[in-house]
């Protein structure tokens, strides 16, 4: 991995762990083979600022025995590619990238917040799944 990209990935990881990166789904692709493929929208994420976008996604692989490489693109105001890196599963940073994609997915789904809410609901006394405010009498 390019050193400058590694620094960016580490920064994104740190901020993503703090839930402070506004990831969004970025895929426009259809799910061709639901049995074997992960839903494309579950593996393609982006975060934009006023001047650039960072896009992170699982790339297609020619080798079926190999884990799919993860690609990181940085695009400018016109949406043109400025720089990128492709990280393969034999590279030491691959696990970092997998973790980053996983954190982006969690952010987009709101998974952590939802699980926390469920746990809070389960810890409350009374019937789980019934909001007291909804009871008319």
């Amino acid at each position, binding site marked *: 991995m390019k050193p400058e990209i590694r620094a960016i990935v580490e920064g994104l990881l740190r901020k993503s762990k703090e839930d402070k990166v506004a990831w969004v789904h970025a895929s*426009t692709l*259809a799910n*061709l083979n639901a049995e074997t493929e992960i839903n494309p929208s579950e593996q393609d994420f982006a975060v934009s600022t*006023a*001047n650039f*976008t960072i896009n992170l996604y699982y790339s297609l692989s020619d080798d079926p025995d190999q884990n799919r490489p993860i690609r990181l693109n940085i695009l400018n105001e016109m*949406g043109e590619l400025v720089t990128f890196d492709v990280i393969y599963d034999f590279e030491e940073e691959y696990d970092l990238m997998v973790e980053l994609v996983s954190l982006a997915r969690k952010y987009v789904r709101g998974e952590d917040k939802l699980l926390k809410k469920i746990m809070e609901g389960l810890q409350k006394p009374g019937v789980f799944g019934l909001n007291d405010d909804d009871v008319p009498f």
Partner: protein
Amino acid sequence: MENLISWLRSNVTLDTILALLGFGFAIYEIRKTKSAVIASKEASEKTVQLLSDRSTISDIATIINGLRETQTALRGNRHEAALLRLQDLREKLYELRNREGFTSEERLTQIQTMVFALKKLQDGLETTLSTSTQVKISVPRSNSQLAEFAVQISGWREEMHYIDRSNQE
């Protein structure tokens, strides 16, 4: 006091009085002209602003139309037409970046998000058009995103109309 009156009688002539009156009138006229120049400058600035706002409103309308045309092209599998629209849309959105009312960090980030999504769709279509690939664009997902953008941009147009009215007051 008597000395002053006597000095005035001996030194101040009708010419001097007329010259003083003329000088006062000249100052009055100059001040009037200056106010008129300032008012004229303000009016021309407002007109330029109004024209700029009109141009932005017109560009926003063009962008919304472009988004709708892209949706229609995608539904009809007319990928080449969609690609042309997407390129135009990206350029138009990029042009908005320097317009009045679009330079805030929040608005620029929204524009950047749209430009990126359009580029992503463009790349996906280009890949779809190439013969050797099995990748396929999801038309419902893409059109849903384009519809969201159209709604968001309509909101910007409303804001511009509001600015427009306040300028006319």
